[in-house]
């Protein structure tokens, strides 16, 4: 199984998944944070943070998932009160109404949490809501394979940054 590791995130990809862990180039006045994309289909070069440009390419047996980090100012906020990533989802956690972009037949789920002192959201899309019984276990295998390292210390501390 392929191993991905960058920016304090790591994943041992389950069979059939590909992925990327990246940080977008910093724009003026903004600080970009790590994003991880995972998919069971070929990911296009340009995919928006939450799957724009990718979810339209999904077949009924496909999965797309995002692990998106927010800035450290979000730590402690109510939205990120859940401690630790949800590692096991059920078919009932996926609903067509949870999609950021409502595409016919698909369904999604989204969770906000804090793990290793870092605030995240995990968002997953199933290619077919009707096939969630088959697809959700594959999402769970991906969740089980993700790991998050604590945030790096400040540059002044002299600690080595990620990577």
């Amino acid at each position, binding site marked *: *199984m*392929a*191993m*991905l*590791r*960058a*920016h304090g*995130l790591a994943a041992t*990809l389950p069979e*059939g*998944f*590909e*992925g*990327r*862990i*990246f*940080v977008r180039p910093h724009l003026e006045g903004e600080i970009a944070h790590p994003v991880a994309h995972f998919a*069971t*289909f*070929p990911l296009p*070069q*340009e995919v928006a943070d939450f799957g724009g440009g990718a979810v339209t390419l999904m077949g009924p047996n496909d999965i797309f998932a995002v692990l998106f980090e927010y800035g450290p100012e979000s730590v402690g906020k109510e939205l990120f009160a859940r401690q630790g990533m949800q590692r096991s989802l059920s078919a009932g956690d996926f609903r067509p109404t949870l999609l950021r972009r409502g595409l016919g037949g698909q369904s999604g789920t989204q969770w906000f949490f804090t793990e290793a002192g870092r605030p995240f959201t995990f968002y997953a899309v199933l290619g077919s809501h009707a096939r969630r019984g088959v697809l959700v276990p594959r999402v769970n295998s991906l969740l089980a394979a993700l790991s998050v390292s604590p945030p790096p210390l400040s540059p002044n501390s002299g600690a080595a940054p990620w*990577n």
Partner: protein
Amino acid sequence: MVALVLVLTFVVLLLGILVAGLLRSHADILKALHDLGAGVGDPSASGRDAHGHHGGVDPSPRAVHVPFTLGPPLPGERDSASAPTIAGVTPGGDALAITVSGHDTLTLIAFLSSGCSTCAGFWDALQRPQELGLPEGIRLLVVTKGPELESAAEVRSKAHERLEIIMSTDAWGDYEVPGSPFFVLVDGASARRIGEGVANHFNQVAELVRRAVVDVRPFGLGSRSKGFADGLDGPERETANDEELLAVGIHPGHRSLYPRSLADVFPSESPAPQEDDSEPWTAGSIGKVG
């Protein structure tokens, strides 16, 4: 006369010493090979262990055959069918893993180096992806060696947002790449490499990819043949293919087996390939795999 005899005696003695030295050197090499477990014959037959002591039981490792390989594996030694996931880092330091199987996409993997002179033309061509001439729907992936063996800065200077580059030394091993440049075409549906080799210019690669698309797509990637899908090879696959052909009425002598021109092989929109003095996908190439 006496002087001649003395000279000859001296020469014979000298040669004798040389031969004895060579034999001693040879014996040392054999002993070292035995100690490594790659000796010729069974060292236990001499009743000595690895340290030269006599004994009833030989504790030294049993002499085994160790393949002695110089350079990349030869075609006959290669597991040329598998198409594992390629995982590594981008020139910018992000992590990237590309799965080339499990979907019906054809992926062209270009194994390139930043320093090889032959690769320079390919890097130039890759700066204009719209002019590469690849059929629509082909996924292009450039794989260099990892940052420990390749200059990330050099590779980054050749990268652009429309070019997917992974730096992964493991991928070079997984795909048994003999050197750069080297190209592999993977059929995602069957999870197999269907073509690989070297080329001088990218248009040669594109032409071969176009041919592969014509070969593969009309029949659906997943339905090429039962023998192919089952991973059969040699006479078994030939027999399985014959059975499939007979089942659909294509028997020996059938006219479809004897095309009269390239147009019969590459019909409709795909033009017959142009003759070229150079030989694409040659040295070390297998051409079509599987």
